[in-house]
């Protein structure tokens, strides 16, 4: 039983992952609101856009920790999502502010569906990885 750097990074990952789950849920709700006409897309994008970079940053942050620890398996698990995030941000519409959501195109049903699907998939991924981090944390704590 040792509180190593590995264990520490898994604990951090666990906490951050909990936040990410909230982000994903928030996204899903936001897009659902758009779909059901409750919100104006301009306002909705204004509330969603500032959260995009923090989400990506947090996710990347604990992966950097995995990298330093040599936790290759965890890193490989997360690599596709990192790649997706980078791609998503690079191919964002022309915007002066931060974020990836453009109020003029968000109401397009294709875009809306895609965003919502993305939210659900991320939620599932974060949830699964939450349990994985929990397991990995305990494993690293009890193994010496």
């Amino acid at each position, binding site marked *: 039983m040792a509180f190593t750097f590995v264990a520490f990074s898994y604990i951090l990952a666990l906490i951050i992952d909990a936040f990410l789950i909230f982000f994903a849920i928030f996204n899903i709700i936001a897009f659902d609101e*758009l*779909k*059901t*006409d409750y919100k*104006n*897309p*301009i306002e909705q994008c204004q509330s969603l856009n500032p959260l995009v970079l923090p989400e990506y940053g947090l996710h990347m942050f604990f992966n950097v920790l995995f990298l330093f620890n040599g936790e290759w398996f965890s890193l490989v698990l997360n690599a596709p999502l990192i790649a997706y995030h980078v791609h998503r941000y690079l191919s964002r*519409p*022309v*915007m*002066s502010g931060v974020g990836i959501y*453009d*109020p*003029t195109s968000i*109401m*397009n*049903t*294709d875009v809306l569906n895609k965003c919502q699907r993305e939210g659900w998939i991320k939620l599932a991924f974060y949830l699964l990885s939450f349990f994985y981090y929990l397991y990995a944390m305990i494993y690293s704590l009890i193994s010496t």
Partner: protein
Amino acid sequence: MPAGNPLFNHHQFAEQNTMMQPPIVPPPQQQPGMYAPPQVPQGGGYQQGGGGAPNTNNPFQNHQQHHQPHIPLVQQPPPPPPAAAPGGITSSSNRYPPNPALQPQNYAQPPPVPGSYLPPQQAPAPQRYVISGQPVNPSNIYPTIPSPGAPLPNNYSNQQQQPPQQYQNLNQAPLPNSHNQNQYVPPQNQQHAYNNGGVGVNQVTGGLNSMSITQQGFNKLWGTDHADLLKTRQVLPPEGVKSPEIRFQHEYMNHVNCSPDLFRCTLTKIPETKTLLQKARLPLGILIHPFKDLTQLPVIQCSQIVRCRSCRTYINPYVYFVDQRRWKCNLCFRVNDLPEEFQYDPVTKTYGDPSRRPEVRSGTIEFLAPADYMVRPPQAAVYLFVLDVTTLAVDTGYLKTVCDVLLEHLDTLPGDARSQIGFITFDSAVHFYNMNSSLSQPQELVVCDIDDIFIPCPDNLLVNLEESKEVVRHLLTNLPGKYLSSQNEPRSALGAALLAAQKILGPIGGRITVFCASLPSVGPGSLPNRQADVKSVKDLTTALNPSTDFYKKLALDCSTQYIAVDLFFLNSQYCDVASISCISKFSGGSIQYFPNYHMVENPIQAKLFEQAMVRYVTRKIGFEAVMRVRCSRGMSIHTFHGNLFVRSTDLLSLPNVNPDAGFGMQVSIDESLSDFQTVCFQAALLYTSSKGERRIRVHTLCLPVAGNVNDVIQSADQQAIIGLLSKMAVDRSLSSNLMDAREAFVNAVVDVLSAYLTTQNSLPNLALVAPKCLQMLPAYTHSILRSMGFRADLRPRLDDRTQFMNQMKTLPLFQLIQTIYPDLYPLHTIASVPLVQVPQSSRSTTPENGEEEEKYPQFPVLHLCSDRIEATGVYLLDQPDLILIYVCRNVSTQFCEDVLGVQGFVALHEMDDLPELETEWANLIRNFISYLQSNKPYQVPIRIIREDSRERMWFVNNLVEDRGEGSVSYYEFLQQLKNMVK
């Protein structure tokens, strides 16, 4: 017959079949009398010689040669009086045999219901054919004309009871009619008109292999026959492509659907499931022109507008009255109560029958909205003009035109006593004009701090037009002179001027009109010149997208403040239309583009600009508008196209709406519609008129549901499909790239034709078969692939390309099709073409014609192909922004003298208008041109060009079916398609 050519072998076979046809005339009991194969017309004899080989190896052969013998038919004496048929069988374009003489005059007209709307172009057509024994009596003509929604089975049953003779009459009766009215139908016309007959024969014969005769007869009857495009040279009907009729099964016979000019669906029968739609591989969507100028529109003022309580649908002709007090919504099927008021019919002033109300009598209706439709008191008409006064702009001389037009129409600007007006000019600074009514002349205020723009004085930049009219006049009179003299800045601070304009209008809302002639280069919103970055077609994607989101963000801000920005581009150099136009795209504005505008050096463009300005300042305008498009349960609107901002799934925010804006929506089918017989779309446009009234204009389109693929494909509306595909292609080329968009276009056509092929079994192998309703689809596609917007080379300028794409997104369908495929008319056939009445609505626009009956010659529309151009011809090319008259070298002297006012071709000069001659031909051609002009939002310049002049390229470039530089000809394109269709 060249035996080596398999195409001809097939043809020969087909002809033999045709000749064997008489015995297979359907027995009267089984076959509706309407059925009429083309060879049945007697007398003239169908003498198409089976052995008379066409003298060409071109498989794209001209069928007109074959059918010359048919011609005398047209001049036959009237047939014996038609057998007394009980129910009038009335004209409807698709139920005729493809008979050359009558096709051009077919008009399928909805019956004008009292108080209903009649589109300007479609005033009652003078030449109607009532084929049964009833005489053509103008007074009772309406009831006999089936509406688009009229149930066919009804007619059908009538015909079943008809004696066999009726069969002949059906074929002949229309002819004398046209004969009587037109006196003489001479040979030149027949050539063109006859082409169509050729198609008919080809269609019939081509299909004989596979179809039983009965089947084929029915197909013809319903207009669902097909043709091999590779062999049919003439697929364009001489009267032009019309929108297909919407046919219901049995109900709703008296109901009037929304006019196809206003509301069209790509399919006139909606497939009942998503799978079926995928099988048909057709795009499903609606195209709408909601604020079109209408000559007749029922307007209703009532204390309570009847709407469905759950889905908020407005009551419309397709609702079901459960009883006197309740109605069932046709979109969500909720049963609603009828208010007491609805029992009263204002037209007949009677009580008791809710179905007599104008709301349930017309597919298009306008309500005066009560106060609960307002979020704030209706705004006044507010106009702010933002004028570019940089060197480039001033040099074009546009200021003079704008100021003159405004001066002239200051009193006719739409508005009431509250109307306000303001002016801003900009170069590298922003100039404001204080026009307080107490001042004798306007006071100019210059703000040089463009990075942090502020409004120099809080009031009087926007003034009441009535009170300050003199000051405004003073300003408009002096403005052009003021900037002519001074040394202007070349740099443009457009962004700052727009920000300032938004600040001024912010509290009220209204319209900002921006004239822009140079690339914004200083201050916020300045743009780099991206022209040099485009080195290959791949680079186009970035160049067609905006380079900054400044204009988009500003547009969204404007949109929330009910401000629309309209743009006029007058640039001769690159101006980054792609970036700047975002300001209009998302604020419901309009974008007009006059490349190379110069008041003196480019007189055609100058004239066009002036006309466009006059139209612009006098046309109707709706402020604070929102449009909601609802559709039946089971369907949903998927993507919106047009200059608008989508505020929620079905609500479009249009700060201003103008009568020249069109919109498109893609529709998806989410649930099975098999329980329903019809589906409905309803577009409701809520706006504030320039008089400060809140109004709602409601358009309802009802379509039947179809359960099999063939029905769906046969119901396709090719023009609407092209309209929708082009919008999708624009999106595609912006999000992906141009080559993808082009490919998608071709694939769309291939998909449709393949889908059709699978519905037809055992068709001849070598054919590229297209159903009648989709025959022009490849031609349109081919043309659009060569157009400025989608061609795969870098020849079109970036701005031209962007503007073409903008137009594809926003033009109403009629103009969109004309942009892609202009109409070509042979003017030299004037002696032979039938005359038709000038529609009532367009006559009002040409008041000089007075009381007398105006007629114009109905020229056939020609394919845009150089082999349709004869050396002795004179052709009129009707483009949306220019009417070209192309005079060929060997034009007849008579035509020159009578119409062009010169002795002969040698003496002809390029002219900007036809001379005012008082000859019969000149009058007719003038009438024809004014008829064409009446279909446009404003009069466009006319240009007469000689075959040997330099300007001939304007004409020749429009012959899109020829092979062009770097692009294939229409025929080659068809062959490519054929290889892809499986």
